[in-house]
């Protein structure tokens, strides 16, 4: 409990003070701040394009979208769990080990590619389910539970690959990483499909409402007749499935699975949704924001490389930009009272 004597959130008075600001401005401010991540994104694209016009070429923008695909799906996987007020540090490691198991099934057991990919997805989904069961049934704290799971999965991946990189994946497995439709790569289609499905699920389904309610106030959701544990298990399980999909796409795109596959994605997969307005306390956030966060991080990543920032500085500058983005978001939440 806080030791501060907090100001009474005198709602009636604050309501009055708000109501007096011209409605249209308030609306514009709210909407503008709500999509502040998109304003950022456009600004950075313009700056990078000025610094190097190649940035704005079709082929480079396609590259940005391809690069954003894996991060985007991992960001969705993380968001599903963040929305119910939990966190899952094992999404990236899950993507790595599940795809490796699928690939090994193809290489060592002679399974067809699609079966291998399906095995990967099944393993990832199962890992998500285990996370969900641990957090709800055993009441483990998700931060630590998923940290343990992450280390186990990373170690497991190292063990089954014996430190080697899995290569020589069949063409049928890697097809999707290179395929194009009418000159457009297929990977981003997966990204957009993933976001579209998530958007419909969150906005238009009972499950989506239940996820928000569970994260918004789990006690109320329970009393209101939502089976909160069940919803959390579904969130973790779906998250595992989406992480598995990201893992498969990463393997297919890279045409290889390293012994630390996916690891570098974890922190960005957490940062992207938060930059996009998903609350770490649950109950808040939407698909458009998450997509904006994912694209913003990818643009920073690709843009810094394209304007020839020496590689020693790329990570630092990227970090500073992320830091600023999160600070702006914090200001947004304070400014509009977290609406």
């Amino acid at each position, binding site marked *: 409990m806080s030791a501060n004597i907090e100001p009474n959130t005198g709602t*009636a008075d604050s309501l*009055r003070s708000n109501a007096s600001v011209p409605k249209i401005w308030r609306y514009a401010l709210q909407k503008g701040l709500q999509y502040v991540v998109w304003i950022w994104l456009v600004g950075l694209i313009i700056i990078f394009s000025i610094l190097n016009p190649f940035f704005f070429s079709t082929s480079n923008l396609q590259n940005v979208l391809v690069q954003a695909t894996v991060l985007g799906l991992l960001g969705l996987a993380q968001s599903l769990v963040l929305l119910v007020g939990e966190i899952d540090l094992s999404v990236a490691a899950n993507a790595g080990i599940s795809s490796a198991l699928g690939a090994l099934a193809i290489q060592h057991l002679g399974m067809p590619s699609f079966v291998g990919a399906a095995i990967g997805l099944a393993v990832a989904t199962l890992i998500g389910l285990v996370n969900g069961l641990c957090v709800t049934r055993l009441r483990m704290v998700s931060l630590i539970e998923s940290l343990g799971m992450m280390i186990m999965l990373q170690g497991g991946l190292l063990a089954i690959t014996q430190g080697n990189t899995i290569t020589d994946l069949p063409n049928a497995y890697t097809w999707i990483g290179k395929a194009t439709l009418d000159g457009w790569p297929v990977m981003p289609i997966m990204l957009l499909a993933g976001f579209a499905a998530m958007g419909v699920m969150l906005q238009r389904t009972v499950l989506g*409402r239940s996820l928000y*309610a569970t994260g918004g106030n789990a006690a*109320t959701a329970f*009393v209101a007749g939502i089976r909160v544990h069940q919803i959390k298990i579904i969130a973790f399980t779906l998250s595992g499935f989406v992480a598995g999909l990201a893992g498969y796409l990463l393997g297919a795109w890279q045409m290889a699975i390293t012994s630390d596959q996916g690891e570098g994605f974890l922190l960005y997969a957490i940062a992207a949704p938060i930059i996009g307005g998903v609350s770490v306390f649950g109950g808040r956030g939407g698909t458009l924001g998450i997509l904006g966060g994912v694209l913003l991080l990818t643009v920073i990543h690709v843009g810094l490389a394209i304007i020839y920032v020496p590689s020693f500085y790329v990570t630092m500058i990227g970090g500073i930009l992320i830091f600023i983005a999160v600070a702006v978001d914090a200001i947004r939440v304070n400014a509009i009272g977290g609406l």
Partner: protein
Amino acid sequence: MGMPGGVPILFREVSVAPGPLLETRNVIKRFTGVIALKGVSFAVETGTIHGLLGENGAGKSTLVKIIAGMQAPTEGEILLDGTPVVAFDVKAMEGHGVFLVTQEPAVVNELSVAENLMLGRWPRRGVWVDSRRMYDLATQFLEGTGLDPRASAGVLSAVDRRKLNILRALHSGGRLIILDEPTTALTTADRRALFDFMRRLKANGVTFLFISHYNEEILEICDSVSVLRDGVLVVGGQAVSALDSEALSTMVLGRGLELFHRARGAAPAPEEPAWRFLDIRGRGLVIDRLDIRPGEIVGFAGLPGSGAQETGRALYGLLPVSGTIAFGTQTFRIPTDPATALKRGIAYLSDDRLKDGIITIESIRNNIVLSSLSSVSVAGFLRPARERSVVERFFEMLAIKARSPDQAVAALSGGNQQKVCLSRLLATGPKLLILNEPTRGIDVGVKEEVHRIVDRLARSGVAVIIVTSDLDEMLRTVDRVILFVDGRPVGDRAAASLTKDEILREAFSTRPGHTVRKFELEAGAKPA
């Protein structure tokens, strides 16, 4: 540390110089375009308990914020001991001895009572806290308060936590203590203890500004009262001795408050199938049989822990108990969770809205349909048109005051939040409604509105259980009162033939065993 005459320092009577401790002169507070306070002038005399009343939005909280230094007035002056305040700043006001104690007691559970008492200002020796001195000082200061300086604050009761907050303010040099609804979530006995404590401090010269929604409390504890209505001070410092509850309501509302009284004798024919609760055991409950007919409003009365609250919660699946429910042709086990209860047509209103009644960060719309998502969807997909019609129906039926159903619930007043909560229950089409403290923390005006809504529901054939500690209210709004003692229903009488004193006497005096029968015999009622 010798105490002169052995009287604890806190409770030594002092003679106070007459005159106002606090005075506001023509205080105006303007927010862009809206005037929240329109020239408020009133005075609080030293060593008195001064009540501050007003509906939500009347300007009470703005005035309190200004007095506590959280906001500066647009115009006008605040005087303390006749000297105008120049800096509006919480620390500066605390320096003058003005302390605001909010509804949520701010106590650090992990620390001891003494550590909380001197929070942040512990006696030190170098970088270390001088524990011995701290406990010596605290022991001396807390004498006669009933608080153990070495006890962990985490184990304190609700009333002791409030006392501790007041004491902390006093220990920091507080002279004017502003109490913002300090009795929320306190039991009747706790309330009495808190009031005794306040009276003893008052005798020592401490001044209180007391904010409450409850007329009875104002009448019981305050010396004088000021009333705000729409930013205007309509009554300033009137002596309470000449007032009654009705007069207070009239002053607050600006019109006579028409108290709702349920018309009795309108109960439906007895052949209608009743809700029957059988053989409930567990969590201290021992209930063999309770019957409630559709259209009936039944009040559950009893002291905390007597089983009144617990039975209400258990019937909704919030407490693990065994037992069966029979309704019409169906017989089923007591629900094990709220989702099951809702499927059986049982709905429950929580006594703590913010904890588990509403989701404040979500919209009114989402809150209203939260318990009836399956009825506004097909195969898991929401049907926006259906959802809209449900939301609009209850938004209008309960007259929720908001710009639109898309507004976040956090921005609503307590009364309107309660209406949103009720809407959520009603949207499920319940056949049995369990209302736990349905009028807690809401305006007098909205209270009566809630009672009328519940009455209308009962007339449409819903069976209603009301659990409340407000007996006056219970007696005029229910048909029948069931009194609980030690987990058992011990009396069952028509509300029309009962008085508050009778209930209280029996609740306190009845012990299980031989005395149980006494109430039943005296009451002439059949055993429940």
